[in-house]
């Protein structure tokens, strides 16, 4: 069985001390250990941002793409090699600004990948511009008089777009977060795990303390039913998404289950030769 150490690399971290992303990394590694997958059977696709550097610190197959494109790459990867555990990861800017279109379409396509967004409500790597999840009024380098845009609400958006698994994590609670990630991986279809992951350098508004105070834990609420779509939406609206825990899940066939002729073996393991008879047959339509 793989151990936590198997998922670590000898790379020194490039994150600021105290960055929330450390917790996300730890939770992901723990989730993989708990699931018993081997490092070589995990593929992580990350976007660009502080968050996107997560792939530097986890020992598995890593693809670090261009800004905003983690999801399409993860989809191609998964559809090509179906026996891998495929994780996509990135920041709030990566996923909900430049990547917003891909996000919506990944949700509705429902390919079996788990998408972890490290949501710090700011652009970290480019040094503190507002992000699509930044609060209205928040002063940043690009909103010197306060943000005048209304923030994206990723959890509601995912549900409205037809998501089959939606969770909200907090990077301080590695235990809960790793459980949510593991559940997301186990879920057959697209799983969103949006994680509140504080940026200690550029976001002085949404700090650890702030999150601790405002986040309510759905997992502790016996009245909350994560299979009830209406209840999920209602709660998200009510709380302005200041929740953590499993928000919503439903059982629907994944893209893979629906795609005609889909086989479980990875493409790379299949026989690629086109039988001569088949070729002749294919040519028939041109005669």
């Amino acid at each position, binding site marked *: 069985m793989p151990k936590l150490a198997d998922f670590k*690399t*000898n*790379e020194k971290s*490039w994150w600021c001390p105290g960055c929330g992303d450390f917790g996300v990394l730890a939770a992901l590694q723990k989730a993989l250990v708990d699931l018993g997958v*081997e*490092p*070589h*059977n995990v*593929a992580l*696709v990350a976007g*660009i941002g502080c968050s996107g*550097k997560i*792939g*530097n610190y986890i*020992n*598995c*197959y*890593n*693809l*670090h*793409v*261009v800004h905003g*494109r983690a999801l*399409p*790459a*993860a*989809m*191609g*990867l*998964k*559809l*090509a*090699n179906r*026996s*891998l555990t495929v994780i996509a990861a990135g920041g709030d800017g990566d996923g909900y600004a430049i990547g917003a*279109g*891909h996000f*919506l*379409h990944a949700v509705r*396509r429902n390919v079996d990948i788990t998408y972890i967004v490290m949501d710090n409500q700011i652009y970290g790597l480019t040094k503190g511009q507002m992000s699509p999840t930044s609060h209205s009024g928040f002063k940043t380098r690009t909103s010197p008089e306060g943000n005048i845009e209304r923030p994206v609400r990723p959890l509601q958006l995912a549900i409205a777009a037809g998501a089959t698994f939606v969770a909200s994590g907090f990077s301080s609670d590695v235990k809960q977060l790793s459980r949510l990630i593991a559940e997301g991986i186990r879920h057959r279809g697209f799983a969103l795990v949006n994680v509140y992951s504080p940026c200690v350098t550029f976001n002085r508004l949404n700090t650890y303390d702030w999150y601790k105070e405002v986040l309510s834990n759905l997992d502790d609420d016996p009245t909350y039913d994560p299979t009830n779509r209406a209840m999920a939406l209602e709660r998200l609206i009510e709380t302005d998404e200041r929740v953590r825990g499993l928000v919503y899940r439903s059982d629907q066939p994944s893209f893979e289950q629906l*795609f*005609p*002729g*889909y*086989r479980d*073996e*990875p*493409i*790379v393991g*299949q026989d*690629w*030769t*086109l039988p*001569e008879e*088949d*070729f002749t047959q*294919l*040519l028939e339509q*041109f*005669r």
Partner: protein
Amino acid sequence: MRERRLTSWKIGGEQGQGIDSTGEMLAIVCNRLGYYIYGYRQFSSRIKGGHSNYKIRIGTEPVASTCSDVDILVAIDQETIDRNHHELVPGSVVVADAHFEPVLPEDSPARLLSVPLTRIAQDVGSPVMRNVVSLGVSAYLLGLPLDAFKEVVLEKFGRKSREVGQQNLAALEQGYAHAKEHLPAPSWRLAPGDGKRRLVMMGNDAVALGAAAAGCRFCAAYPITPASEIMETLMSILPRYGGVVVQAEDEISAITSCIGAGFAGARAITATAGPGISLMQEAIGLAHMTEVPIVIVDTQRGGPSTGMPTKHEQSDLWALLFGTHGDTPRIVLAPSTVEEAFYDTAQAFNLADRYQCPVVIASDLSLALNKQTVDGLDLSRVQIDRGHLLNDDEIAQAAESAGFRRYRVTESGISPRPLPGQPQGQYLATGSEHNEFGKVSEDPKNRVAQMDKRLRKVPSDPAQMGLTGIKYTGPEAPELLLIGIGSTYGPIDDARRLLEAEGYRVGHAHVRVLAPLPFKELADLMEQAQRVIVAENNAQGQLAALIEHRVGVALRERGATMPEVHRLLKYDGTPFLPAEIAADAREVTSYAQAG
């Protein structure tokens, strides 16, 4: 009766009036009778309405281009006559629907045959079958056996319902009968075909088949004219072999999905046209930097921007070579016939795997959409070469405590590759500069080592890659050298024959690999040539500029003089006619003689 070995038939009417399908049917009939054909559709960026026409050249020998002549013009409306009468040659006929009271310009060399196409169609069921009636008339005029047409009409319409099939059959027969009874006897007929059923395909078909044959099992693309058929055809083939085709939400998603699949070891393809190529530029750089093999097809069309989506052009050459930011080596193949489109596509996957980078197929609208006769496609010529992949043992041996050196600096520049799922091969593939392990690095020395490695791995000459860089026909030291790329092969070759017949010592060098440019071979040819014409379908002479530069430097290094590169540019959306090229060549040479 006189027998002809080559003729040219054309039908025109409004888009949506069955112009396409009539042309298609004639093409199939001719193919089954053993003729060679070359089809040329003109259509516009709209679904119904607007003039559209379909010209088919039919010959007993290979036909590689369209021409400006028309022997038989079928006009469904007056606009067809107005727009096409200038192509009519002496002895030609216009079959026009009596319905619209056709008028032919007085000075036309053609003879007007007014035929009640619509009325006949109406009589057998519905006026929409007027085009099938015209097919019957055409069968008579071409001197082709009606039975061959019956078979094809039944195949096409019988699928819908028996009744529809029978009605169309009647329309065909009535057309033929009417022609036989009322039209003057034709002065010629086509020499009989050899009866071999060859293949009639367009470049997009060949690309899709080439991909399937080469083991491609992943395609992600976004619809766009004139590339869509590639995805659509693969959608019908790949699922049978465990492959997946995804209609992406945009081109950026399409190519990035291919990168994901390529990283996972699958052979992946995306197909698009200019606007998509422009959108893909960032991801193309990503594939270069991560060294992930993928294949990209660009079916060039009129640019820039949305440009002329349904018109032929070859104006993406520069974008394909220089489009992404930063320094990357490129591999761009340029098939010039439908047949080559098949083999080049298959080959592209081998090159992508071998050199671990994106490989582009530069197609163009004429090649992509025009139907051509192909003698045959040989599956056994398609060999799969996966490049330097490692097996599990090799990886285990190579892996170090710091991980696996995925981007090992080797002499060739090619670093052996593990695939996800292989134990101990874990590495980071990143678009950021990285060290041998794949870890992000901004170290200056490492940067140079990795950049040099990437640039070095793609040879500077296609010959070193085992590719034919130039397809040359002509004498050893031509006085005049014609150079082209892509679908201009046919018209240039035809022009060459014309000029040769007139006594010119003319050669035709067709560029089969755009990058790396076969500049040595070109230099050898150009060193000998007195005049060089680069004929291409764009406004800036994109190919000519490349040749001028690379060959210029090569010749200077040899101490040889560079001949002037004359540009023959056509960018009005229509392909070259052989006669245009020949005329330009005569002018250039006469100027040379005078000058």
